[in-house]
């Protein structure tokens, strides 16, 4: 029975991958490789300096691996909660003659295998990197594979306990939309803050290896603090020490104790909770709305879109929170880019061609706001079967499409305005760049949204929970900014190699960008006006 259930779990995972189109799989792979490269660069960059300063490399290694283990734990907690407390799955399973222990066991085996694979790709490269940086013997690379096989027991054990809290918190948040938005924004701002720190750090590593910031970071006090901290990071510290042949017996004992106890404790607690959850009923929250009937069908559609936006957890987390946190993210990157152009070769290049920094800043703003606001690519697909009801409504399809565009466009404009204001008031960009970035981005976002909704109309995806259209929307949103960027780059190179007076470089690039964006915008409007009705009409569900 366990084997049959396990097969069901594997098939469910396999189907998710199969349902994705080739572009989505390639996109996921590229993103994973970039993240892996960033992780390894950061680790090797810092470790080589510890090796250079002679001390602290091992403590940093333990802290880094422990950090990644915690990251795995967070991801695994979500995985466990989704798998173990899946309402639909439980409804199906509840009526079958299957013992709960078999269900739990099959789910745990599935999670364990997925965890081993995940740890292998996320954490094992760090072991290899550390081995190379510290010239360790070949046996270290083999013995450290034990970490990949054993640490999932700790991750799953603790994850099982945390998943209970996760379950309650997510159930609570599901009925408190405003709180969801606040927490979503707070979460992304925290992520952006740490992203900013890492970005600054990587920029420092790339540009000036001996900057004051870095030298301060590797001082004796910090190294000692890291060493002291690494003592408490079990079971990672015990396992790594065992792999490095330090106090072998004691470290193996401690590692085994933590791994086994955390796993058993987690399984016992979660099993009891699983049985409780299966018998629990659905919550019966009431929403009181005192609004009246709206006498304008178009306004009613807008209101419906607002409702769908603010009550959909996916939108709240993936879009709205990111939209509000976007300005901060872009600010961090612009500051990093501006710093990059003040030192070294890039600094020299910028002094030769004044205006180039502004062009890069505009590109970054256009690029990121475009990507963040690419949600229009799923506006039709997200209607799912409700598209049948929409098609019956006595409102023209063009107006329905227009209503769909209004809400995300308003949100995007607001986000863009905040972004540009933040950048202007923090003096990251000047007034000229502020105005140009705002208007170019505004028209590009609108054009992108129109093209995205057009693509979604043409080939909607109503069935899959994972929407390929979102990924293709993100990829498409990159095209226009990169077209502008490459044209600007060509102009920059023409100026550079022909040694033309660069006083008007920035203005020329901006004028050309504006003309291109104008044509893209007009093209998108004409296109959607001509095709919206036809494609909407053709949708069959």
């Amino acid at each position: 029975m366990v084997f049959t259930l396990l097969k069901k779990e594997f098939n469910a995972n396999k189907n998710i991958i199969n349902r994705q189109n080739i572009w989505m799989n390639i996109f996921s792979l590229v993103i994973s490789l970039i993240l892996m490269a960033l992780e390894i660069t950061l680790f090797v960059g810092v470790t080589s300096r510890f090796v250079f300063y002679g001390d602290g490399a091992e403590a940093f290694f333990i802290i880094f691996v422990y950090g990644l283990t915690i990251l795995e734990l967070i991801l695994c907690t979500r995985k466990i909660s989704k798998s173990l407390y899946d309402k639909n799955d439980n409804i199906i399973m509840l009526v079958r003659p299957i013992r709960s222990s078999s269900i739990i066991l099959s789910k745990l085996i599935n999670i364990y295998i997925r965890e081993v694979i995940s740890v292998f790709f996320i954490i094992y490269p760090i072991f290899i990197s550390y081995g190379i940086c510290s010239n360790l013997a070949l046996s270290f690379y083999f013995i450290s594979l034990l970490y990949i096989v054993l640490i999932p027991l700790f991750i799953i054990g603790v994850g099982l306990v945390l998943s209970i809290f996760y379950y309650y918190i997510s159930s609570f948040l599901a009925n408190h939309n405003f709180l969801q938005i606040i927490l979503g924004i707070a979460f992304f701002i925290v992520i952006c803050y740490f992203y900013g720190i890492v970005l600054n750090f990587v920029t420092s590593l790339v540009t000036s290896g001996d900057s004051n910031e870095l030298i301060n970071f590797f001082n004796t006090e910090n190294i000692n603090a890291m060493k002291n901290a690494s003592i408490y990071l079990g079971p990672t510290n015990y396992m790594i020490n065992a792999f490095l042949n330090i106090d072998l017996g004691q470290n193996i004992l401690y590692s085994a104790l933590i791994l086994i106890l955390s796993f058993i404790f987690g399984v016992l607690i979660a099993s009891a909770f699983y049985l409780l959850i299966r018998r629990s009923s659905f919550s019966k929250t009431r929403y009181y709305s005192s609004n009246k009937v709206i006498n304008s069908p178009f306004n009613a559609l807008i209101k419906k879109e607002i409702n769908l936006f603010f009550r959909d957890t996916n939108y709240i987390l993936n879009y709205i929170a990111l939209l509000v946190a976007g300005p901060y993210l872009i600010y961090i990157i612009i500051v990093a880019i501006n710093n990059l152009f003040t030192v070294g070769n890039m600094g020299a290049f910028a002094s030769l061609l004044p205006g180039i920094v502004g062009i890069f800043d505009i590109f970054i703003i256009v690029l990121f706001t475009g990507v963040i606001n690419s949600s229009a690519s799923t506006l039709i697909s997200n209607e799912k079967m409700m598209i049948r009801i929409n098609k019956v409504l006595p409102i023209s399809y063009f107006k329905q499409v227009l209503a769909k565009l209004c809400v995300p466009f308003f949100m995007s404009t607001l986000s863009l305005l905040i972004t540009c204001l933040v950048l202007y008031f923090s003096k990251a960009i000047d007034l000229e760049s502020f105005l140009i970035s705002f208007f170019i981005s505004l028209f590009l976002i609108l054009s992108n949204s129109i093209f995205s909704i057009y693509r979604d109309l043409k080939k909607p995806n109503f069935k899959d929970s994972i929407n390929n259209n979102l990924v293709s929307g993100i990829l498409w949103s990159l095209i226009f900014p990169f077209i502008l960027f490459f044209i600007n780059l060509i102009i920059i190179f023409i100026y550079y190699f022909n040694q033309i007076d660069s006083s008007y470089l920035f203005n020329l690039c901006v004028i050309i960008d504006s003309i291109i964006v104008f044509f893209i915008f007009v093209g998108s409007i004409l296109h959607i006006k001509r095709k919206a009705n036809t494609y909407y009409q053709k949708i069959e569900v």
Partner: protein
Amino acid sequence: MDEIIKINNLYKSYGEKEVIKGISLDIYQGEVFGFIGKNGVGKSTTIDCMVGIKPFNSGEIYLDGFSIKKDAIKAKKTFGYVNSEPLCYETMTGREYIRFIASIYKVREKDFEKRLYELATEFDILNDLDRLISQYSHGMKQKISLISSLIYNPKILILDEPTVGLDVMVSQSLFKIIEEYRKNGKTVFVTSHNIDFVKRICDRVAIINNGKVIYLLDLKNKPQYREHLEEIFLSVYSSDMKEEKVGKTQTHTINVENKDYR
């Protein structure tokens, strides 16, 4: 009598497969019309074409004189439609969803409140209107679908399998509402697998098979059809099965296309 729904020589195919093969029907004001057939013979596709969900290859459909192809918006204002599977926005409450539909059809606030109270009481869902639809059972969602299509008092009611998931009490309420509709000179077009339901409420019935109307029976004026509806229904498909055994494809002795028994 005035024709309020007119279907002329309707053809619809999915790729190479032709599913509707020249259906023609006239449905009159104030009648309850049943459209029945086994699964997969083209009932829902016909309804989808009628209400504008699916485009069709050729033919014409008029609702209260408006072509669903050429005058879609006006045609859509004339009917209320209930899907076979209840469809509502799950992130809205029952009241919000019904209000959204009422807003689309420009129902006045005063009329809305009055009608909502009446319908919600009739369907026994008044106390649950402020809960999220995602928390509703299948039957409750179907009630919300029904109320949302009745809230603006349309001239025509198009119901695709309306009794699925409804308990006996609610089905009874649905009978009552359809009866009221008929009394007020309005039209109901209904598909159902439930022969008893059709027998009880319909004035006329069309039996469809392989994308064609096989029988058009006047139950109102010829009570014997009402009595033997189940037998007639079964005879269509049992003879169809015999036909398959002997390898025939299209014609059949009882397949009198569009034969009007009035």
